[in-house]
């Protein structure tokens, strides 16, 4: 019996592409294109995670921050892709680009085992056809209490491109300060693995609570 579809909200200032919908469907994920003001009514039981795409209108998210807070306070999981230019929450600080963007500074180091990256080697995040930089070129500074997941460069702890933050007031963020994490890979198999991991982790996070969801 096939698993049921997991519906996720996707805020990216445009429709969900057919190719993404098709690939997500193969991992039993459906994406609903949402607008920032939809956060004023989005229910965490219907959309256990809302993904912010790297092309999202961040000014609109700032203006709809009450909706974002409302969704988080319900226990919602926000998966944020891309650099922060306009921050909707005081805990989220603007993007810090790597001071040097050579291979050594763009190499991804796994700092914590995380279910999103099960069966995804760090080298696959660092390189596409031998070229580095697609995964991230800097980091969005984590709030106190956040858990770094992947870091960049020779001092990866100082440049956490990916981190998880259980928000004390409710809800959680997975931060990925780079291109959309579900489209980054060249290989169809790797994109499928990431989407399957996304499904499994979001369900675990939602069903078992955020702390259990962090255990790999």
């Amino acid at each position, binding site marked *: 019996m096939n698993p049921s579809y997991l519906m996720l909200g996707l805020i990216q*200032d*445009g429709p969900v592409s057919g190719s993404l919908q098709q690939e997500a469907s193969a991992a039993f994920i459906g994406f609903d294109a949402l607008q920032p003001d939809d956060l004023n009514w989005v229910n965490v039981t219907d959309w256990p995670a809302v993904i912010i795409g*790297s*092309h*999202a*209108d*961040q*000014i*609109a998210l700032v203006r709809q921050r009450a909706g974002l807070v409302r969704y988080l306070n319900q226990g919602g999981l926000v998966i944020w892709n*891309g*650099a*922060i*230019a*306009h921050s909707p929450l005081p805990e989220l600080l603007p*993007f810090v*680009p*790597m001071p040097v*963007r050579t291979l050594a500074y763009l190499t991804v180091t796994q700092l914590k085992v995380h279910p999103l990256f099960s069966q995804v080697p760090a080298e696959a995040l660092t390189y*596409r*056809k*031998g*070229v580095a*930089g697609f995964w991230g*070129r*800097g980091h969005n500074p984590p709030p106190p209490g956040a858990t770094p997941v992947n870091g960049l460069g020779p001092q990866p702890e100082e440049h956490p491109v990916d981190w998880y933050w259980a928000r004390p007031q409710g809800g959680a963020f997975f931060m990925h300060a780079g291109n959309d994490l579900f489209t980054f890979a060249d290989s169809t198999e790797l994109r499928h693995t990431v989407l399957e991991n996304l499904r499994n982790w979001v369900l675990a996070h939602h069903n078992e609570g955020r702390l259990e969801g962090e255990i790999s």
Partner: protein
Amino acid sequence: MSQPLSYSGHMIALDAGAAYHHFTFTDPALSPFFDEVVYLDDLTEAHLQRADAVLVPCRTPAHRLLPWRDDLLRFAEQGGLLVVMGETQPDSWLMPLPTEPVATNYWWWLTAEDGPELQPADDNHDLFQYVAFADCRWHLHALHTLPEGFCSILNHRSGQSVLLEGPLGREGYLILTSLDPMYHHGSFFMPATTAFLGGFLPWVRKRLNQQIEGALQHDDTATDCSGK
């Protein structure tokens, strides 16, 4: 690379709120070229009335521009300079523009035999006094068949254009490209796009100077728009 000493007119850049737009507009090396940055949801007719040039950055979603179609065309009709950049689907909101989408050539520098496939339409075009041709090469997204009355600045080897200019309406002027340098520059990716913008924006301001001075040709049959 020559640059004019002073810039006339008021250029407004539209902001769709994406992070890369903000990082481009606020880059100290580029911000002097924008007199005003206006978030699209806050755009009013008053902005267009005080603007001499409106710049639509690359990757501004077409659905955000469509409501402004008539106003932007009126702005051009009244003598405005419109700068429209890549991945904004201008054929869906600006004007009929034969457009062939192309698969993004992510790896042209690894597969050199494919090359970036671009060449200057005219080596003597004044843009190349501002931008080195080598800095025009990163990704391709779409190719345009040159509309009548416009001249191409950068051609794909198929003969289609990725950067063109010419009169828009009776009094206006259009600079249009399918290239997306602001997206990459503001994403801290592709150094060529940073170099490109460093020359392209001063050249746009030169064109605005010329438009204000009435030095650009607005004859439909004009083919020499090199600005020399």
